[in-house]
C-alpha cells in the first residue's frame, strides 16, 4: 500500500511483502509485528532503504509461495531483499550497509511449539551470516507487538507499540 506523509511517500509493507526505495522523504513502514520480524537494510551512501516483513523461518513450509513472495520466509527474504536493494541502486558491498531486525515477539511456551518469533530471528541471523552479513542492531523478543518505520533519507528506524512511548534503534 502506498500513501503520503508530510515529507514524502509512505509505503506500507504487508505480511510477507518487501519494499525498497531511495526516494527522498519516503518512509517504509510495517504494522503490528507479532512473531513476524522486520528485516531492514540501508545503504547510507546511496540512501537506499529496504524492508521485508518476514512471517516464518523456513520456506519449505510452502515452496510455491516462497517463489511469489520471498519476503514471507527468513531463508528466502535475505537474498531477495539484497537483490531488490541492488536493483534499486544500492551500492555493493552489502557489508557496508546497515542491517537491523525488529519484532519476533515471543510466547512463553515450555514445549517451544509457539516460539515462531525466536525461530524467525535465528533463521534471519543464519541467512545473513551465510552471506557474511550480520545485524548491526536488533529489537527483538518480548511479548508485545511492534510497528516499524524506516526513513530513506537518514536510515532512522523508529518503533512504536500501543501503550508505550516510541523509540529508535
Amino acid at each position, binding site marked *: 500500500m502506498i500513501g503520503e506523509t508530510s515529507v514524502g511517500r509512505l509505503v506500507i509493507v504487508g505480511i510477507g511483502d518487501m519494499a525498497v526505495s531511495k526516494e527522498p522523504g519516503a518512509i517504509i513502514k510495517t504494522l503490528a509485528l507479532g512473531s513476524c520480524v522486520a528485516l531492514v537494510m540501508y545503504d547510507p551512501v546511496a540512501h537506499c532503504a529496504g524492508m521485508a516483513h518476514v512471517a*516464518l*523461518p523456513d520456506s519449505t513450509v510452502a515452496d510455491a509461495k516462497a517463489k511469489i513472495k520471498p519476503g514471507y520466509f527468513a531463508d528466502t527474504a535475505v537474498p531477495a531483499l539484497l537483490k531488490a536493494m541492488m536493483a534499486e541502486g544500492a551500492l555493493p558491498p552489502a557489508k557496508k550497509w546497515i542491517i537491523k531486525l525488529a519484532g519476533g515477539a515471543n510466547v512463553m511456551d515450555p514445549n517451544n511449539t509457539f516460539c515462531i518469533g525466536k525461530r524467525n530471528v535465528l533463521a534471519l541471523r543464519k541467512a545473513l551470516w551465510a552471506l557474511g552479513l550480520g545485524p548491526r542492531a536488533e529489537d527483538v523478543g518480548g511479548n508485545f507487538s511492534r510497528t516499524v518505520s524506516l526513513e530513506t533519507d537518514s536510515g532512522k528506524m523508529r518503533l512504536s507499540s*500501543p501503550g508505550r512511548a516510541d523509540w529508535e534503534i
Partner: protein
Amino acid sequence: MAIPEHILEAIDKLPALTPAAAEVIALAQTKDHSLADLAKIIANDPLLSARLLKTVNSAACGLVKRIDNIERAVIYLGERVAIAAAFWSSMGKLCERPLDGYGAGAFELWRHLLAAALAGRALAVYTQDALSPETAYTACLLHDIGKIALSDFLCGRAQEAVDKCEKGLAADYLESEHMLVDADHCEAGEAMARRWRLPENLAAAIRWHHAPEQAREWLSLAWTAHIADFLAMMMGCGTGADALRYRLRPGYNQHLRLERRTLEKLAFEISVELERNLAIFEEFRNIS
C-alpha cells in the same frame, strides 16, 4: 467475581444480535445442519441476503457467471463467510470502530476476530475429540466481543495497563483490566453472550478463552479459542496494547495435537485465507 453494575448497564445498551445472526450462530453449533438450512435463515433477512448476493457477484470473487440465489451464494462463499457475514450484519460497526481502551485502531478488532475464527476452524481437526470446525469458527469469531463493552471504560488507560504488566504488578493484561475496571474482557464477553442468549458452549468459550482449563464440559472448545487467539496475535492481528500480553496456558498439548511444523503450516494457510476473507469483507461492508 461480579461485574460492576455500570459495565452491565453499558452491555445492556449494546445492540442485540439480529434474528438471522442469532439463528445462524445457533445453527452452526448443530451437527447435522446443511448449507441449505443456513441459506434459508439468511434468505429471511433481506438486507443480509442482498449484501451476500452483491458480494458473491463482486470483483473480489471473480465469478464468470452471475449467482442469483442465496443458496448458491452460500455454497460458493462457504459456511464460514456466511456466519461471519451474519455476525457482521449485527455487530460489524462495533467491531470495526477503534478500541480506544486498548489503543487499537479501526478494523483491528474485526481483523483479529476473523483471523482467530479462521485459526479456530483450522485447529479443530487437531483437537482430541474432533471438534466441529464450524463450532470452533463461531466460538473464535466471538471470543473477544467483551472488548467492545470494556473499551470505553479503559479509554485513555492503555499505557497504565501496559505499565502494570511490564512492572510485574499484573501477571498479564487480563489482570491489568481487572485492576483498572474491576472486570476483564472475558467476563464482559460472557455477560454479552448471556444477554444475546448464545448457546452455552459459546458463552463458555468466550468466558474461559484465557483460562481454558476451567471450561468444564467445553474444554476442547475453550482450548481451541485460547490457541486461536494466540495464533492471531502472533500473526500480527492483535487488538492494540494487549497483543501477546497474556499467558499461554500449559497443558494445551493434552487437548490439541500440535507440533512446531504443523503450527507454522497452519499460520501460513491462515494468513492466505485471511487475505481472501478480508477482500471479500471489504466488498461486503462497502455495499450500501
